């Protein structure tokens, strides 16, 4: 049964299972990934089936987790690390930025460090502080890392396979509020390229660029706009480092208007890089400046305010209207 309808969380679980089955060097490490199956159950049942040597509950120290994962990778393993929530990756930031990202270049290519760091990220789940953040910019700026994020169960399945197979360190951001969204997953299909964006909906009047949790929001925006007679194209980036500027450029050359949407704060966010580069590439095509919709320059707010903080249908539509008004 190659095609199944699965929630995104289950697609990730199946993907990890497949990786453990296929490659004896794959190990899973993190907090509560064993009996509990992780706080989101992404590793559910894996320790039972693959043992404590392959699915490893670690001491409670993120720098230790990533640092030992690097050591395991140097020994020939392919560790897949789970960080429990976005806000808890920072104790490991030094190991990621100064060691994981740079070790291959430091060795002039002699070693590889194929570590995948899975991070459930983003808001919208009514959580307490540190459980709803979108720190992707802080990794994309760092050379030596790749940063990807799926938006659908099918992509979740395949992109995780590809991330684990990659010889580079990959920061794999999982849109936690979409964990329970279902979609078809064809485990036999030939996957696309990990770092290639996908046109999720075609349109002619304006391009919406999004990734992870905001892809669904942008598809809803496009549907709502269609009722008003506006044709929006939605591009799902999939990858934040590298960014697939070619796909965005092709779309913008057609639509001539671009709005970038992400949950992360706008200031120094992905939208800035996309706006800068696409403006350079499409200077004579753009009818309006690239507009950005995202989080504010404020700590992620308490849950009862998150709907105001996060880009929602109306805020994106507002930006679309402003872009179309140029």
């Amino acid at each position: 049964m190659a095609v199944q309808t699965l929630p995104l969380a289950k697609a990730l679980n199946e993907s990890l299972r497949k990786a453990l089955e296929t490659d004896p060097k794959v190990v899973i490490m993190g907090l509560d990934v064993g009996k509990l199956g992780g706080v989101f159950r992404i590793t559910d049942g894996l320790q039972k089936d693959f043992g404590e040597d392959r699915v490893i509950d670690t001491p409670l120290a993120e720098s230790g987790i990533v640092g030992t994962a690097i050591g395991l990778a140097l020994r020939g393993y392919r560790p897949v690390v789970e960080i429990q929530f976005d806000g808890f990756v920072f104790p490991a930031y030094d190991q990621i930025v100064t060691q994981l990202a740079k070790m291959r270049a430091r060795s002039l290519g002699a070693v590889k460090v194929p570590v995948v760091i899975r991070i459930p990220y983003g808001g919208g789940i009514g959580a307490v502080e540190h459980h709803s953040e979108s720190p992707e910019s802080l990794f994309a700026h760092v050379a030596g890392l790749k940063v990807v994020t799926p938006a659908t169960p099918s992509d979740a399945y395949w992109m995780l396979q590809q991330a684990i197979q990659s010889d580079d360190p990959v920061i794999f951001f999982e849109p936690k509020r979409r964990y329970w969204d279902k979609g078809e997953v064809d485990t036999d299909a030939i996957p696309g390229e990990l770092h290639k964006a996908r046109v999720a909906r075609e349109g002619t009047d304006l391009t919406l660029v999004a990734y992870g949790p905001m892809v669904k929001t942008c598809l809803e925006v496009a549907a709502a706009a269609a009722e008003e007679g506006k044709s929006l194209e939605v591009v799902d980036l999939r990858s934040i480092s590298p960014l697939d500027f070619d796909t965005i450029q092709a779309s913008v050359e057609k639509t001539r208007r671009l709005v970038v949407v992400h949950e992360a704060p706008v200031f120094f966010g992905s939208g800035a890089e996309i706006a800068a580069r696409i403006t350079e590439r499409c200077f004579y095509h753009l009818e309006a400046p690239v507009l950005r919709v995202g989080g504010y320059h404020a700590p992620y707010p308490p849950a009862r305010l998150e709907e105001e903080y996060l880009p929602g249908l109306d805020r994106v539509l507002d930006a679309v209207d402003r872009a179309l008004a140029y």
Partner: protein
Amino acid sequence: MTVESTAARKPRRSAGTKRTSAGSTPDTAGAGPELVQLLTPEGKRVKNADYDKYVADVTPDELRGLYRDMVLTRRFDAEATSLQRQGELGLWASLLGQEAAQIGSGRALRDDDYVFPTYREHGVAWCRGVDPTNLLGMFRGVNNGGWDPNSNNFHLYTIVLGSQTLHATGYAMGVSKDGADSAVLAYFGDGASSQGDVNESFVFSAVYNAPVVFFCQNNQWAISEPIEKQTRVPLYQRARGFGFPGVRVDGNDVLACLAVTRAALERARHGEGPTLVEAFTYRMAAHTTSDDPTRYRRDAEREEWEAKDPILRLRAYLENEGHADAAFFEELETESEALGKHVREVVRAMPVPEHMAIFDNVYADGHALVDEERAQFAAYQASFTGGEAE
């Protein structure tokens, strides 16, 4: 000369450590003679040459006070758990079972001492006089910490594990600089003990001889991970290697917790530097209301610990000694009900903050971008008919 750990066990090569039952691994389980206990689980007072003096002055009235603290804290906690089930709170981290550790240590403090809690120190907050309903704001999602730390010398709850131990150490360094004789009490869990920050706080506090007491509630679980995933020797032993004393206390014995914490705070006040207190206790409830402990631990373990309940233990002692009569327990029950009712009412009435609060207090001295975004947000919200946002 090789220094062997005092309780080394036969180590294994495999990464997997199997946990069959609580207490089966003698070196991390708490039954050893190193445990300071003043009240047995049956409520018998046992003598302790080192620590009796620290509670010699405790009057029956104060004992009843400790009992009341524990009962009301537990009641508050139960109310919060049920408010979460009713959807009034997004989450709750219960302290069930840890009342003695928190009340015993919390009541050892002086007003001018300062406390740095984790997210589970509801009992300590109670001792500090923080209005318990204030603790609920972050769990209801209306704020990230709803009290002024300086009103009660009780810092905000800290979620990133271990961070607060460094704040406590720095604060204590400041106390030294000021020439004050206050002390600082920093809480953390068995899981957090593995964090670099906690160990760095041991380094700094030892080097600066800071007046800080580290109070580790070893409730034996970090979500689903048993203590064996954090250490293979008792945690209190960690301190020695950093150059200061560690002590393990029965965390379900409020009198022992009071005595041991008083002793440690006194050391701090007298310029004798940090102490690590490991309160050996048990997390009776789930990690939080989101957690499902049936996936990783046996009911039998919980039952063993029910026999060591901190409240029943003190009650037995009070009754044995004739320190409390039926009227006391009845009145407390009434007070307890009233507290529950009060908490329910306050929580349900808790206002959702103004939307614009997103932009408040990001900076003390203002920030142009925040001002700009605030203005844009206001204009955007005003653009909807009636001013109502999406």
